[in-house]
Protein backbone atom coordinates (compact mmCIF):
# COMPACT_ATOMS: atom_id res chain seq x y z
CA UNK A 1 0.00 0.00 0.00
CA UNK A 2 2.75 2.43 0.99
CA UNK A 3 4.79 1.28 -2.00
CA UNK A 4 1.87 1.81 -4.40
CA UNK A 5 1.24 5.29 -3.00
CA UNK A 6 4.93 6.14 -3.28
CA UNK A 7 5.20 4.69 -6.80
CA UNK A 8 2.22 6.57 -8.19
CA UNK A 9 3.21 9.94 -6.81
CA UNK A 10 6.93 9.49 -7.49
CA UNK A 11 6.12 8.77 -11.14
CA UNK A 12 3.86 11.84 -11.30
CA UNK A 13 6.64 13.95 -9.76
CA UNK A 14 9.30 12.69 -12.16
CA UNK A 15 7.10 13.06 -15.25
CA UNK A 16 6.09 16.57 -14.25
CA UNK A 17 9.73 17.36 -13.45
CA UNK A 18 10.82 16.24 -16.92
CA UNK A 19 7.99 18.31 -18.34
CA UNK A 20 9.26 21.40 -16.50
CA UNK A 21 12.60 21.04 -18.27
CA UNK A 22 11.46 20.08 -21.79
CA UNK A 23 8.44 22.34 -22.32
CA UNK A 24 9.34 25.34 -24.43
CA UNK A 25 6.60 27.61 -23.13
CA UNK A 26 7.08 28.94 -19.56
CA UNK A 27 3.41 28.60 -18.63
CA UNK A 28 3.50 24.83 -19.33
CA UNK A 29 6.60 24.57 -17.16
CA UNK A 30 4.82 26.44 -14.37
CA UNK A 31 1.78 24.14 -14.45
CA UNK A 32 4.06 21.08 -14.44
CA UNK A 33 5.92 22.52 -11.46
CA UNK A 34 2.60 22.74 -9.59
CA UNK A 35 2.19 19.02 -10.33
CA UNK A 36 5.62 18.27 -8.86
CA UNK A 37 4.82 20.25 -5.74
CA UNK A 38 1.43 18.62 -5.26
CA UNK A 39 2.79 15.10 -5.52
CA UNK A 40 5.67 16.00 -3.19
CA UNK A 41 3.06 17.16 -0.66
CA UNK A 42 1.51 13.68 -0.73
CA UNK A 43 4.95 12.13 -0.18
CA UNK A 44 5.48 14.47 2.79
CA UNK A 45 2.23 13.14 4.27
CA UNK A 46 3.52 9.61 3.77
CA UNK A 47 6.63 10.61 5.73
CA UNK A 48 4.53 11.97 8.58
CA UNK A 49 5.13 15.66 7.85
CA UNK A 50 1.58 16.99 8.04
CA UNK A 51 2.47 20.61 8.67
CA UNK A 52 5.07 20.75 5.91
CA UNK A 53 2.66 19.08 3.47
CA UNK A 54 0.05 21.75 4.19
CA UNK A 55 2.65 24.51 3.93
CA UNK A 56 3.90 23.02 0.67
CA UNK A 57 0.44 23.24 -0.90
CA UNK A 58 -0.36 26.68 0.51
CA UNK A 59 2.99 28.44 0.14
CA UNK A 60 4.59 26.72 -2.85
CA UNK A 61 1.72 25.52 -5.03
CA UNK A 62 -0.47 28.41 -3.93
CA UNK A 63 1.52 31.58 -3.39
CA UNK A 64 4.83 31.17 -5.19
CA UNK A 65 3.44 29.57 -8.33
CA UNK A 66 0.67 32.16 -8.60
CA UNK A 67 3.42 34.79 -8.47
CA UNK A 68 5.23 32.98 -11.29
CA UNK A 69 2.09 32.71 -13.41
CA UNK A 70 1.33 36.40 -12.83
CA UNK A 71 4.79 37.41 -14.00
CA UNK A 72 4.64 35.12 -17.05
CA UNK A 73 1.32 36.64 -18.07
CA UNK A 74 2.43 40.18 -17.26
CA UNK A 75 5.53 39.86 -19.44
CA UNK A 76 3.60 37.99 -22.14
CA UNK A 77 6.47 35.49 -22.33
CA UNK A 78 6.41 33.34 -25.42
CA UNK A 79 8.13 30.11 -26.32
CA UNK A 80 11.90 30.33 -26.27
CA UNK A 81 14.04 29.86 -29.34
CA UNK A 82 16.14 26.74 -29.54
CA UNK A 83 19.17 28.21 -31.26
CA UNK A 84 22.36 29.68 -29.93
CA UNK A 85 23.45 27.33 -27.19
CA UNK A 86 27.11 26.48 -26.89
CA UNK A 87 28.60 23.30 -28.26
CA UNK A 88 30.18 22.30 -24.96
CA UNK A 89 26.83 22.34 -23.16
CA UNK A 90 25.26 20.20 -25.88
CA UNK A 91 28.06 17.63 -25.84
CA UNK A 92 28.92 17.41 -22.16
CA UNK A 93 25.71 18.45 -20.43
CA UNK A 94 23.70 15.25 -20.47
CA UNK A 95 26.61 12.85 -19.67
CA UNK A 96 27.70 15.04 -16.77
CA UNK A 97 24.15 15.19 -15.45
CA UNK A 98 23.78 11.44 -15.65
CA UNK A 99 27.09 11.13 -13.79
CA UNK A 100 25.84 13.49 -11.08
CA UNK A 101 22.62 11.56 -10.66
CA UNK A 102 24.39 8.20 -10.79
CA UNK A 103 26.85 9.18 -8.07
CA UNK A 104 24.08 10.55 -5.85
CA UNK A 105 21.93 7.44 -6.29
CA UNK A 106 24.89 5.10 -5.79
CA UNK A 107 26.00 6.64 -2.50
CA UNK A 108 22.44 6.89 -1.22
CA UNK A 109 21.88 3.19 -1.87
CA UNK A 110 25.18 2.25 -0.27
CA UNK A 111 24.44 4.31 2.84
CA UNK A 112 20.97 3.04 3.65
CA UNK A 113 19.99 -0.61 3.79
CA UNK A 114 16.58 -1.68 2.46
CA UNK A 115 15.54 -2.54 6.02
CA UNK A 116 15.39 1.17 6.83
CA UNK A 117 11.93 1.70 5.38
CA UNK A 118 9.06 4.14 5.59
CA UNK A 119 5.62 3.15 6.86
CA UNK A 120 2.65 5.47 6.86
CA UNK A 121 2.20 6.60 10.45
CA UNK A 122 5.69 5.51 11.49
CA UNK A 123 6.60 9.00 12.67
CA UNK A 124 4.19 11.36 14.39
CA UNK A 125 6.43 14.32 15.22
CA UNK A 126 5.37 16.41 12.24
CA UNK A 127 2.04 17.76 13.44
CA UNK A 128 1.42 21.49 13.64
CA UNK A 129 1.59 21.23 17.43
CA UNK A 130 5.05 19.66 17.48
CA UNK A 131 6.43 21.95 14.78
CA UNK A 132 4.99 25.01 16.51
CA UNK A 133 6.53 23.96 19.80
CA UNK A 134 9.95 23.49 18.21
CA UNK A 135 9.66 26.79 16.32
CA UNK A 136 8.81 28.81 19.40
CA UNK A 137 11.31 27.23 21.78
CA UNK A 138 14.46 25.77 20.20
CA UNK A 139 14.30 27.74 16.96
CA UNK A 140 12.85 31.00 18.26
CA UNK A 141 15.73 33.23 17.12
CA UNK A 142 15.88 31.87 13.53
CA UNK A 143 12.11 32.19 13.35
CA UNK A 144 12.22 35.85 14.33
CA UNK A 145 15.11 36.55 11.96
CA UNK A 146 12.95 34.99 9.22
CA UNK A 147 10.34 37.69 9.72
CA UNK A 148 12.98 40.36 9.17
CA UNK A 149 14.12 38.53 6.02
CA UNK A 150 10.56 38.55 4.70
CA UNK A 151 10.24 42.26 5.48
CA UNK A 152 13.46 43.02 3.59
CA UNK A 153 12.26 40.90 0.65
CA UNK A 154 8.95 42.79 0.51
CA UNK A 155 10.74 46.14 0.57
CA UNK A 156 13.19 44.98 -2.08
CA UNK A 157 10.43 43.72 -4.36
CA UNK A 158 8.45 46.94 -4.02
CA UNK A 159 11.50 49.13 -4.65
CA UNK A 160 12.59 47.09 -7.67
CA UNK A 161 9.21 46.77 -9.33
CA UNK A 162 7.74 50.23 -8.81
CA UNK A 163 7.57 52.82 -11.53
CA UNK A 164 10.31 55.44 -11.48
CA UNK A 165 9.01 58.68 -10.03
CA UNK A 166 10.70 62.01 -10.59
Amino acid at each position, binding site marked *: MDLILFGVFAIIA*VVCGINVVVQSHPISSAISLVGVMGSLAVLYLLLGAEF*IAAAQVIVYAGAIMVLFVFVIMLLNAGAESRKGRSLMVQLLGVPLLITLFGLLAYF*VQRMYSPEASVHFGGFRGGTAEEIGHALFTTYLLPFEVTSI*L*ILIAILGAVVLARKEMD
Partner: protein
Amino acid sequence: MAGVPIYYFLTLSAILFALGVAGFLFRRNIITVFMSIELMLNAVNLSFITFSYYLKKNDGHIFAFFVMVVAAAEAAVGLAIILTVFKNRQTLNIDEVDSLKN
Protein backbone atom coordinates in the same frame (compact mmCIF):
# COMPACT_ATOMS: atom_id res chain seq x y z
CA MET B 1 3.63 -5.50 5.04
CA ALA B 2 6.73 -4.05 3.47
CA GLY B 3 7.30 -0.31 3.65
CA VAL B 4 9.11 1.88 1.18
CA PRO B 5 12.90 1.77 1.60
CA ILE B 6 14.44 5.06 2.69
CA TYR B 7 16.69 5.23 -0.35
CA TYR B 8 13.73 5.27 -2.75
CA PHE B 9 12.84 8.68 -1.37
CA LEU B 10 16.44 9.86 -1.52
CA THR B 11 16.78 8.59 -5.10
CA LEU B 12 13.61 10.44 -6.09
CA SER B 13 15.13 13.53 -4.51
CA ALA B 14 18.31 12.99 -6.55
CA ILE B 15 16.27 12.63 -9.76
CA LEU B 16 14.38 15.86 -9.12
CA PHE B 17 17.60 17.68 -8.22
CA ALA B 18 19.31 16.47 -11.41
CA LEU B 19 16.28 17.62 -13.43
CA GLY B 20 16.52 21.01 -11.76
CA VAL B 21 20.20 21.24 -12.64
CA ALA B 22 19.36 20.26 -16.23
CA GLY B 23 16.75 23.00 -16.48
CA PHE B 24 19.12 25.51 -14.95
CA LEU B 25 21.87 24.69 -17.47
CA PHE B 26 19.93 24.07 -20.66
CA ARG B 27 17.09 26.56 -20.61
CA ARG B 28 17.53 30.08 -21.96
CA ASN B 29 14.33 31.63 -20.64
CA ILE B 30 15.04 33.45 -17.38
CA ILE B 31 11.68 32.49 -15.84
CA THR B 32 12.22 28.79 -16.57
CA VAL B 33 15.72 29.00 -15.09
CA PHE B 34 14.11 30.44 -11.98
CA MET B 35 11.56 27.62 -11.85
CA SER B 36 14.39 25.09 -12.08
CA ILE B 37 15.86 26.62 -8.94
CA GLU B 38 12.52 26.08 -7.20
CA LEU B 39 12.58 22.45 -8.39
CA MET B 40 16.02 21.96 -6.82
CA LEU B 41 14.85 23.52 -3.54
CA ASN B 42 11.90 21.13 -3.50
CA ALA B 43 14.18 18.14 -4.06
CA VAL B 44 16.35 19.18 -1.12
CA ASN B 45 13.23 19.62 1.02
CA LEU B 46 12.24 16.04 0.26
CA SER B 47 15.68 14.90 1.47
CA PHE B 48 15.28 16.91 4.68
CA ILE B 49 11.89 15.36 5.43
CA THR B 50 13.19 11.87 4.65
CA PHE B 51 16.18 12.23 6.97
CA SER B 52 13.83 13.61 9.57
CA TYR B 53 11.74 10.45 9.33
CA TYR B 54 14.86 8.28 9.46
CA LEU B 55 16.15 9.97 12.63
CA LYS B 56 12.65 10.21 14.18
CA LYS B 57 13.17 13.90 14.96
CA ASN B 58 11.35 16.90 13.59
CA ASP B 59 14.36 19.20 13.16
CA GLY B 60 14.37 18.42 9.43
CA HIS B 61 10.84 19.76 9.20
CA ILE B 62 12.00 23.06 10.68
CA PHE B 63 14.77 23.22 8.09
CA ALA B 64 12.29 22.51 5.29
CA PHE B 65 10.08 25.27 6.68
CA PHE B 66 12.97 27.76 6.59
CA VAL B 67 13.85 26.67 3.04
CA MET B 68 10.26 27.46 2.04
CA VAL B 69 10.46 30.89 3.66
CA VAL B 70 13.72 31.69 1.89
CA ALA B 71 12.27 30.39 -1.40
CA ALA B 72 9.28 32.69 -1.01
CA ALA B 73 11.49 35.71 -0.32
CA GLU B 74 13.76 34.76 -3.20
CA ALA B 75 10.84 34.36 -5.59
CA ALA B 76 9.46 37.79 -4.69
CA VAL B 77 12.80 39.58 -5.16
CA GLY B 78 13.84 37.52 -8.16
CA LEU B 79 10.62 38.10 -10.05
CA ALA B 80 10.87 41.83 -9.31
CA ILE B 81 14.38 41.75 -10.80
CA ILE B 82 13.05 39.90 -13.86
CA LEU B 83 10.36 42.58 -14.26
CA THR B 84 12.99 45.31 -14.11
CA VAL B 85 15.27 43.53 -16.59
CA PHE B 86 12.37 43.06 -18.98
CA LYS B 87 11.35 46.71 -18.62
CA ASN B 88 14.88 47.87 -19.48
CA ARG B 89 15.77 45.38 -22.22
CA GLN B 90 12.50 43.87 -23.58
CA THR B 91 13.97 40.38 -23.50
CA LEU B 92 13.77 37.28 -21.30
CA ASN B 93 16.66 35.45 -22.96
CA ILE B 94 19.57 35.14 -20.55
CA ASP B 95 22.09 35.14 -23.41
CA GLU B 96 21.08 38.68 -24.32
CA VAL B 97 21.57 40.00 -20.79
CA ASP B 98 25.36 40.10 -20.85
CA SER B 99 26.42 43.61 -19.82
CA LEU B 100 28.92 42.25 -17.30
CA LYS B 101 30.56 39.98 -19.87
CA ASN B 102 32.66 42.54 -21.74
